[in-house]
């Protein structure tokens, strides 16, 4: 086949939307987390907890919590559901499938979501304009996770490790609309886009 197709170029979810730049003292700083492998994991049986323990040596917390094992970030998104992420190229879904076997239904979603890291002094003021949950540190602790709706768009939201910094994942097709909400809402604080 033709040469052009030989290198099928991958495009990230926010490709063409985020243009690096913006004021130094911006209250909001945004970065796209492009380099992620993502999978959804749904527990299929009561053996799941044991399988996780065997594979990763940990007990999963219950509820909407984050835990990081073997560089894999697991976010509790439902009573039996997790959202798994790992930075880098190594395929994640097949790894999980192998280690969890019939105890889980794993689906590769690496292309299904766009993920933004939103930080800066005004990040909570920004998110208050769309996210209908309480992100005050007293209410939303370091390892808390929320699946919720922002500006009519379903999102997953968790704190990244740094202070005043959140990661937000949403369906790829909605990244444009999410960005239009975010950029309009951030305008009064100043917005800077940084490359990963």
């Amino acid at each position, binding site marked *: 086949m033709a040469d052009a197709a030989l290198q099928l170029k991958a495009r990230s979810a926010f490709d063409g939307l985020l243009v690096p730049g913006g004021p130094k003292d911006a209250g909001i700083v945004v970065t796209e987390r492009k380099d992620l492998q993502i999978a959804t994991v749904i527990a299929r049986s*009561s053996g799941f*907890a044991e399988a996780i323990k065997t594979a990763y040596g940990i007990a999963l917390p219950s509820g909407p919590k984050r835990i990081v094992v073997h560089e894999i970030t697991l976010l509790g998104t439902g*009573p039996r559901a997790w959202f798994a992420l790992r930075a880098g190229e190594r395929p994640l879904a097949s790894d999980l499938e192998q280690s969890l076997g019939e105890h889980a239904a794993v689906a590769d979603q690496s292309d299904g979501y766009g993920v933004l890291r939103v930080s800066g002094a005004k990040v909570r003021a920004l998110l208050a304009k769309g996210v209908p949950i309480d992100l005050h540190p007293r209410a939303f602790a370091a390892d808390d996770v929320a699946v919720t709706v922002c500006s009519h768009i379903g999102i997953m939201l968790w704190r990244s490790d740094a202070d005043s910094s959140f990661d937000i994942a949403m369906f790829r097709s909605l990244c444009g609309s999410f960005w239009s909400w975010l950029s309009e809402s951030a305008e009064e604080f100043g917005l800077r886009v940084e490359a990963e």
Partner: protein
Amino acid sequence: MRIPCPFCGVRDLTEFTYLGDASLAQRPDPASPDAAARFHEYVHLRDNPAGLHDELWYHGGGCRSWLTVTRNTRTHVIEGAKLTRTSKSWTATS
């Protein structure tokens, strides 16, 4: 109105979709001899009480759980909510 999802915590109404009376989770036996009558009742007839009401909500904007919520239809005060999924109820974390 805010609904206390047993998984996610208290969440805004906008994240939920309503189905109706909790009896909708009790599908009649299709093999019973009076299945037609029972299905008619199941699909169409409602107590529609003014007061406490067990009802089904889907947390589609959150954890994707179906919830059985007990709510007062006169005051909208919510007495409680639990996951609808009950039988063989194993949890994935213990």
